[in-house]
């Protein structure tokens, strides 16, 4: 009975979180096209449904029914596995994301699928696994564009993962935990408790590295369409292509969700009197605000050159994050004594 309850609770929460994440992925593509259009004085999708609201569904159906082409000279096994390696780590990170305050369901306590005490490390580790998918996709396609895209992705993600991880360390020093739930709970009680006020530099470096980490403009070197056709997924079609697409957007949502949890108080309301609004709505608002920011910078900045990207990562971001860690550590030490 107890086992059944535990399993029921897990399945219930997985269904909720995955449903919301996949729906958000679908509508993130819509939102991106719409917002970019507005920024460029266009209208964006308008034909499918009112204001084009059913466009993501139409696109999904189209991709589902498209022909699946595997290049004759490709390594078929790895070619088939790569999209899955790419997609799974992007979705699996949501397992440790606290989406609401604890509530009772199925005789247990819900609010996060699994409250790992090393939740943050878990997300970072799986984000690195996702890189394998991209590199293997680039290699197994046996195409020069895909290969270059995959290699660029490898170099870029390794460089920026460092900056990403280092900018998180400041938050860890402040909250003293790797569990995302405890990090959120440490920011309880109004927006002046949020980590962004104590760690503004870390927030900026985190967002910049997150953009690079998810291969978004202006750091979308792995798929730079004016140079590499479509980068690592040049040879992919149909559902496999859709997997990479899903992975990119799921990754974006993941890093934005993580930024909300680490710096913006996660599911906590910004003011005490706003507590009547459920926590998951606050998390969604914060995440979507950051996602809007991602689209916004995509609409504003041109793509950087690859050497500039590397130089910026290693010579600017990493020293800044290291200095930030040093000062945070000093501050925490002085505050505690």
């Amino acid at each position: 009975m107890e086992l059944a309850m535990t399993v029921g609770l897990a399945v219930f929460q997985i269904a909720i979180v995955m449903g919301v994440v996949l729906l958000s992925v679908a509508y993130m593509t819509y939102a991106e096209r719409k917002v970019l259009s507005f920024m460029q004085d266009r209208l964006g999708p308008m034909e499918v449904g009112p204001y084009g609201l059913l466009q993501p569904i139409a696109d999904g159906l189209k991709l589902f029914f498209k022909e699946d082409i595997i290049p004759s000279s490709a390594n078929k096994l790895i070619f088939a596995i790569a999209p899955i390696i790419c997609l799974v780590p992007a979705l699996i990170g949501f397992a440790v994301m606290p989406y609401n305050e604890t509530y009772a369901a199925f005789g247990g306590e819900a609010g996060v699928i699994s409250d790992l005490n090393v939740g943050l490390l878990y997300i970072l580790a799986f984000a690195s696994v996702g890189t394998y998918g991209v590199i293997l996709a680039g290699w197994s396609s046996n195409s020069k564009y895909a290969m270059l895209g995959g290699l660029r992705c490898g170099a870029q993600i390794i460089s920026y993962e460092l900056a990403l991880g280092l900018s998180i360390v400041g938050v860890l020093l402040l909250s003293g935990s790797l569990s995302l739930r405890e990090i959120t709970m440490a920011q309880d009680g109004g927006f002046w408790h949020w980590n962004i006020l104590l760690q503004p530099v870390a927030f900026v470096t985190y967002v910049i590295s997150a953009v690079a980490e998810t291969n978004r403009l202006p750091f979308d070197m792995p798929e730079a369409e004016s140079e590499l056709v479509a980068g690592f997924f040049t040879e992919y079609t149909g559902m496999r292509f859709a997997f990479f697409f899903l992975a990119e957007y799921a990754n974006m949502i993941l890093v934005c969700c993580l930024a909300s949890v680490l710096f913006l108080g996660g599911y906590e309301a910004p003011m005490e009197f706003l507590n009547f609004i459920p926590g998951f709505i606050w998390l969604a608002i914060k995440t979507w605000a950051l996602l809007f920011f991602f689209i916004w910078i995509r609409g504003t900045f041109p793509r950087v050159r690859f050497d500039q990207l590397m130089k910026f990562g290693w010579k600017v971001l990493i020293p800044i994050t290291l200095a930030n860690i040093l000062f945070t550590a000093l501050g925490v030490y002085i505050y505690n004594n």
Partner: protein
Amino acid sequence: MGLMRDIFMTELMGGMKLVFLQMFKPSCTLQYPHVKHNVPDGYRGLMSLLRYEDGSERCVGCSLCEAACPSNCIKVVSDEVPGQPLVRYAKEYYLDITRCVFCGFCTEACPVDALAMTKVYEASVYDRRELMFDKHKLYELGEAHLADGKAYLLAHNMDDGTLNPTEGLGDNRYEFPPVDLGEGVPVPTTVGLTREALEAEVAKS
């Protein structure tokens, strides 16, 4: 100052502000199949053949359009109007729209303003053979878009409106001159008659 500008990324922020404000400006997209542009009178759309007000064909089968056409897409088969020697018309008229470059030279070459271009620009069909316009199709287009065709002729200064001032638009009607066919050959009784009388004559014979 330069350092502070770098730290706070002033230039980048300026760009982002501009893009953000741009978001609230009205879009300049025209929702094309639902909303359409107003096409100017001089627009060169699909070709059409016009008729006079009394319903008779303007085309006299002179083949000048065929000669003027740079892409050789016009074919005129000229013939005499039955029962009216020397009065000619186009028995057959073919216009291959797939080859037409919409230059309008044929309308300029036409001495009787029989050819005019309409404002039709949605010419897509599922069968290419439908784009081989014959005389029937061209007159059909001309009837459906008579006003557009006249406006086209006016816009391109091909009609000064002097010949038919009551309509505001002349017809440039070609009056076949009386001919002398020589000694011993009777002059056809139809020459020089008005159109109504001519038709009555033809109907009698």
